[in-house]
């Protein structure tokens, strides 16, 4: 699946997007974030406080409990500050 990162999460991860194949044990957005944390220092830094991480599946806001099965695109980003 395709992951997208925005704002300081993008800066910390060091890339705007990537394709990943998480193991089958990763079923929710929250578990995906935990799995990403283990992929390296930059990920650990980006996701050191999972509570502030917001997510969207296929461009719709979701909570950490949301299932990722069937998702084409998952975006992870900090709280929004537009307007």
């Amino acid at each position, binding site marked *: 699946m395709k992951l*997208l990162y*925005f*704002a*300081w999460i993008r800066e910390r991860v060091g890339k705007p997007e990537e394709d990943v194949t998480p193991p089958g044990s990763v079923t929710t957005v929250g578990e995906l974030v935990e799995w990403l944390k283990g992929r390296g220092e930059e990920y650990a830094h980006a996701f050191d406080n999972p509570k502030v991480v917001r997510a*969207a599946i296929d*461009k*719709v*806001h979701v909570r950490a409990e949301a299932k990722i099965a069937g998702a084409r695109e998952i*975006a992870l*980003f*900090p*709280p*929004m*500050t*537009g*307007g």
Partner: protein
Amino acid sequence: MQVTITSDPIDPAAETAALARDRTDVGALVAFSGVCRGDEAGDPIAALTLEHYPGMAEAEIARHVEEAESRWPLLGVRIVHRVGRIVPGEIIVVVAVASAHREAAFAAAEFLMDYLKTRAPFWKQVERTGKTIWVDARAGDDAAAARWKKVERAAE
């Protein structure tokens, strides 16, 4: 409904005028402009840079416009949000709403702005001399958006 995301300067008068052009049923036009201040949390800034999630930003705003249209009798909505580098004094966002009467236009414009602040995928970065800092979300913005949910519950 027209939702535009642009890196060009925004003309609020043109957005407002477009809502009333060639029609005589509009009795109220409300346009809110969000402007880049020269300070952030008390410290002067050189500029803001706005990042967005292309595709989702337009879709998320459109979902809230549909919600506003289901709550109030609106005759038109135009929202323009700027992205990229913006200097103090320039407009970041315009929300323009047309209705037959002012109550709906005022309420819908405020509703749309409150949701834009907390739900539309945009992120502000502040540029000061020599460094850039991401703007933190404000708890007050969440509270402003949440009060519309109370209205929803009370109406049920």
